[in-house]
């Protein structure tokens, strides 16, 4: 009886295929057709001959890419930013979650959450604008540096300041938002555990160490692996805005290189080669991260 109520024949099913059609068409057009463009990595693209008739060059583009010092520079810059985010931004997010979780005054907790979540919704251009207002040559920080120490710093146009600024921006924009997933995990911890610990005379720091942290261990491990899996991805919007010719030694990451080579120098084949290397490396990392999560007895990312 139950079964009979569910559409089974085509004349009953076609409305669902019709509903799915625009979305499927979207994924094919804007996700799968671009994948076919990857064959240009194995060709020397000529705009006059088009994608199909451009001559094959085998792995020449890849050889050229791995043979240059550019490759090592891009790999180093990309991974270093990811690593800094991993060891500074990520623990900061956990720390902020623990702080918020320890607040006992509900109103105070809600107000501070409202405040720290907000920057997540601002565009990177707005964040960049605020950064310039503070760290730019005539920004407020340089003003006080001049007034108090008679000095100034080229925050936005120097190799030394690029990474600290980028990490600071990431924390300012997203650390608050990043607490949501931890706070949800924290809410799942049985309150009886805390009461039992209290009866046994545990201090609150001891409770955090022995109850709270183990309670969110699974979430931490999964998010850590997700981050490792995406180490080849930079926050491209952020980097694109913060980069300039004076900090390119440290700000040049894979995506930025692809942009410069592809859309400024119009060397499509080489840009696609670099982009393809990044996509494939990311895929391997993500699958590896998922495998590792399952090895560790977690549920896995997918």
């Amino acid at each position: 009886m139950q079964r009979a109520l569910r559409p089974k024949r085509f004349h009953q099913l076609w409305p669902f295929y019709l509903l799915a059609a625009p979305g499927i068409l979207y994924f094919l057009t804007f996700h799968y057709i671009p994948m076919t463009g990857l064959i240009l990595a194995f060709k020397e693209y000529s705009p006059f001959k088009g994608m199909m008739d451009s001559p094959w060059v085998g792995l020449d583009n890849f050889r050229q890419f791995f043979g240059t010092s550019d490759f090592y520079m891009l790999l180093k810059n990309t991974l270093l930013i990811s690593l800094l985010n991993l060891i500074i931004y990520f623990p900061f997010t956990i720390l902020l979650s623990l702080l918020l979780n320890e607040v006992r005054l509900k109103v105070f907790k809600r107000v501070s959450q409202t405040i720290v979540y907000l920057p997540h919704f601002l565009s990177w251009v707005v964040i960049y604008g605020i950064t310039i207002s503070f760290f730019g040559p005539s920004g407020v920080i340089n003003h006080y540096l001049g007034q108090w120490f008679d000095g100034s710093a080229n925050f936005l146009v120097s190799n030394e300041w690029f990474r600290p600024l980028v990490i600071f921006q990431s924390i300012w924009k997203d650390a608050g938002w990043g607490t949501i997933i931890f706070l949800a995990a924290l809410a799942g911890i049985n309150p009886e555990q805390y009461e039992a610990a209290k009866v046994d005379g545990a201090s609150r720091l001891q409770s955090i160490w022995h109850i709270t942290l183990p309670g969110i261990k699974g979430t931490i491990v999964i998010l850590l692996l997700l981050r490792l899996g995406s180490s080849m991805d930079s926050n491209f919007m952020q980097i694109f805005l913060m980069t300039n010719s004076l900090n390119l030694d440290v700000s040049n990451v894979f995506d930025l290189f692809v942009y410069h080579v592809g859309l400024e120098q119009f060397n499509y084949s080489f840009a696609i080669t670099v982009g393809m290397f990044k996509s494939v490396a990311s895929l391997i990392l993500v699958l590896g991260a998922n495998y590792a999560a399952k090895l560790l007895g977690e549920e896995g990312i997918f």
Partner: protein
Amino acid sequence: MKLKATWFDTIIVVMICLISLLVILPFLYIIAVSFSPPGDSMAGNFFIWPKHWTLDAYSYLLNANTFLTSVKNSVIITAMGTVLSLFVSITLAYALSKKFLPGRRIMLLVIFFTMIFHGGMIPNYLVVKNLGLIDSYWAVVLPAASSAFNIMVIRSFFQSLPESLDEAARIDGAGEFRILYSIVLPLSKPIIATFTLFFMVQFWNEFFSAVIYLNDTSRWPIQPLLRQMVAISASNISAEAAVDASLAANLGPNVQNAAILLAMLPIVIVYPFLQKYFAKGAMLGSIKE
């Protein structure tokens, strides 16, 4: 039990206050600069409370054609993008929420795979270019119309609705579109509200696709224009050809910061509504079958 504040509570509250202050201060400073005459902020003789109040920056921006055009473009892109994204995502997610649909697993796999592998920037660019979308609003809207993540989240919501609901409607002879429109959608208001807000924020904040797909700067939304307006002041950053020479000439710190504020204003306005839904929305993402 009455709450008794201990030194531990005090430390926690103080640390959170400091962090919150770090978030709020930049906003206050931006507001203050936008309401101060340029001379004041360059001399740096105030921080978060202007010494002299002036509306010059705002009256200038609200009369500058380039700026108004970019706001108009942003509004159009946001409206087009939000409607299209809602339509594409909801219809596909609804179809995929039906376990009886043959081919559902393959479609899900096709969608899921885009989460972990993609062609990349240049192949995407070539597709948009070959479709003849360069310099059209569609170039910004279409490539961002949906994502695997959105589909998965909305689909898991639809799956949480009781199946007996549409079965009952089917017995009563309602067509599938009718069921979706008059039964499922009214029950899905929370998820639709969440995604409407997320899409609005996403398209209002869209920046990079406008830079690469819109050569005609009269089509530019607000974000790329704002970027040019603020980048000019970081004087040793390579001077780009300014979109509008008179706008560039009038760029005092007050105008720049007023532009930053106006660019974030719509976000701040919808933020209270966003906040009502986003925790739910963000958590829905982690629901798995």
